């Protein structure tokens, strides 16, 4: 079973920093969405906020996991400690995958503009179950993430075709970058460079989303 990515030694700790940035960016978007939901009571905005909050939590788990396990792996540890570390790593990775996938499913559901809990249940249940029972969890997780991100990116192509402006283009590019990053992550259990490139592309995606958010807030205050 593949449950770890190959990380180049020089990228240790830098990746945790990236994941903290991802977590903070997604949390800021989630909190802004909740604030706007409190004003508008629009359910789609609430779902969008919950989706980003789940992503923020997943990145926080991933960053914490890397921060705990990697320094210990660099030290001389006993067989028992390695076993404990692997258990912790496996548990953390599973929680990260479930939260990240729940976030993507919630974001995709927010784009439907349909308020039927049954559809959400049908999307989330099988998705999480397939990952939970899969023998190649990381690969299965990334493939399903790619499907959801391609759907979300397509939604933004649709949005951009209706409202052609820099903000919708920014959201389209950002979600497309997330799609590309997840595609490259597929190769990270085999190739250490894929892990670095994916992190770099993911960083660009969140910089893009933060820029969209900032432009939105600036336009609204004018």
């Amino acid at each position, binding site marked *: 079973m593949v449950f770890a990515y190959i990380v180049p030694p020089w990228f240790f700790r830098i990746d945790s920093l990236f994941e903290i940035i991802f977590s903070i960016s997604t949390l800021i978007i989630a909190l802004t969405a909740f604030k706007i939901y409190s004003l508008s009571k*629009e359910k789609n*905005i609430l779902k969008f906020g919950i989706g980003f909050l789940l992503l923020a939590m997943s990145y926080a788990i991933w960053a914490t996991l890397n921060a705990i396990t990697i320094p210990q792996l660099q030290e001389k540890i006993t067989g028992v400690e390695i076993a404990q570390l692997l258990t912790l790593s496996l548990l953390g990775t599973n929680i990260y995958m479930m939260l990240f996938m729940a976030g993507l499913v919630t974001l995709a559901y927010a784009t439907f503009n349909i308020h039927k809990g049954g559809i959400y249940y049908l999307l989330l249940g099988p998705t999480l179950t397939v990952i939970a029972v899969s023998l190649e969890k990381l690969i299965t997780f990334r493939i399903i993430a790619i499907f959801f991100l391609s759907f979300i990116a397509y939604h933004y192509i649709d949005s951009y075709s209706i*409202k052609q402006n820099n903000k919708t283009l920014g959201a389209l590019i950002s979600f497309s970058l997330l799609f590309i990053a997840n595609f490259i992550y597929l190769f990270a259990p085999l190739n250490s460079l894929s892990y670095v490139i994916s992190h770099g592309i993911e960083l660009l995606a969140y910089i893009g989303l933060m820029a969209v958010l900032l432009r939105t807030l600036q336009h609204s205050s004018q």
Partner: protein
Amino acid sequence: MNKKRNRLEIIKDILEVIKNKSGKIKPTHILYKSNLSHGMMDLYLTELLEKEFISEKTEKGKKTYSITQKGQNYLSQYSLISNFTESFGLS
């Protein structure tokens, strides 16, 4: 020609109509001013009541609507709400 209004714009228009009538208005006036069908107006009024953006009073068998503080907040922050939903494809 007027462009097709989205949900958020229609809600804003209804709230503005109520606000401009000193915050108290009959359904027929809303129907006339908001440019909606009777069925659509009923749906929107139900939604606005659920969201507590407006309140309903019945006097001598006739309904009147007034805007609440939440409705006022919606109007004052409409630009933010509209820009956010547009930017993130949620409208």
